[in-house]
């Protein structure tokens, strides 16, 4: 086979691999030591609009140096990571299907030892959720060699009139390497007030 054909084959394999990665991105998981994960989990009711031409998110810099991220759709996690990187924040973003969570730990979580340690930690301060589907990220709390790990879980019920939680959020700062995560069912999904509620403790 000529080198041109060889290269074409490799590139086609790459196209397939990328399609596969994109498919999986939506399921890439987050985890965390139980305490930190739970302490960080917060729930917020937002209408998720899904216009097809709309970009998945918007990133802007606030006057005080924090970064505002507005999420429109749970896709393009990789692109959002790149945009945040450009603005000085190393982030690991995961969009999860409903009822899913992740087994094992993602690394050494700042403030992850106990609820007391969590209070006032960089993990707690790095992200502030805003009503309406956005958040402010404070780069000052994500240092060199640290990663802001964020996971969003979609609720399958996006339409009912019940008091709604459309997605859940968990965010924390990890020291050093962030480990990939193993998909697992989230046993706490139904714990508080039925489906779609945030896990106990949040």
């Amino acid at each position, binding site marked *: 086979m*000529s*080198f041109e054909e*060889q*290269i074409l084959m490799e*590139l*086609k394999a790459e*196209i397939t691999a*990328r*399609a596969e990665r994109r498919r999986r991105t939506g399921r890439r998981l987050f985890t965390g030591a139980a305490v930190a994960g739970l302490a960080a989990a917060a729930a917020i009711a937002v209408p998720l609009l899904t216009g097809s031409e709309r970009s998945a998110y918007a990133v802007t810099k606030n006057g005080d140096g924090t970064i505002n991220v507005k999420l429109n759709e749970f896709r393009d996690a990789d692109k959002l990571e790149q945009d945040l990187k450009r603005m000085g924040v190393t982030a690991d973003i995961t969009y999860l299907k409903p009822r899913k969570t992740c087994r094992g730990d993602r690394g050494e979580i700042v403030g992850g030892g106990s609820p007391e340690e969590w209070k006032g930690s960089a993990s707690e301060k790095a992200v502030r959720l805003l009503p309406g589907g956005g958040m402010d990220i404070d780069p000052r709390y994500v240092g060199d060699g640290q990663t802001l790990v964020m996971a969003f879980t979609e609720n399958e019920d996006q339409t009912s009139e019940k008091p709604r939680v459309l997605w859940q959020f968990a965010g924390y700062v990890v020291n050093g390497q962030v480990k990939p995560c193993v998909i697992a069912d989230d046993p706490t999904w139904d714990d508080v007030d039925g489906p779609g509620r945030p896990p106990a403790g949040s």
Partner: protein
Amino acid sequence: MRRKQAGIATDHVAFEAFYRRHVDAVTRFLARRIDDPHTVADLVAEVFMAVLDSAHTYRAGLGTEIAWLYGVARNTLSAERRRVFKESRLTSRVSGRRPLDTDDVARLEERIDAEGPAREVFKAMADLPEGERAVLELVVIDQLTVTEAAMALGIRSGTAKVRLHRARRTLRGLPLVMEGTPG
């Protein structure tokens, strides 16, 4: 058109057509700049890999496919040069080369030889300011129009014309420098 272009990054058939349409031009583009068959072959792969990354940046209204592709190829090449420069200070690059059979090497060497005069002109251009050299290179050596060269470099057409004019004035002693398509 923009949709169609973006499709090459995800659609095997569209990508293959694009690849076959341009693989020869890209190989020659690289052979004009590099005289090692293995590096040329590696970089052909790199350029088309970069195409997968940047297919969404193509705007049909702004110029031809080939101008856009040469822009991608230039960026790939300068990234490679930075990398080689960094690595040469640390370790010599021996492993990880694409295996080429003798036919491949022979065909690549033919192209590299055929582009020899172009590489000579590159040497003559070496002292020009980077911006001027880039325009001259694309117009004279790669046979793009000035408008296409501007697109490949992400600059305005007027800027490209000014730079081309200056570069030609500096190098008016070299016959090849006055060639290239107008526009």
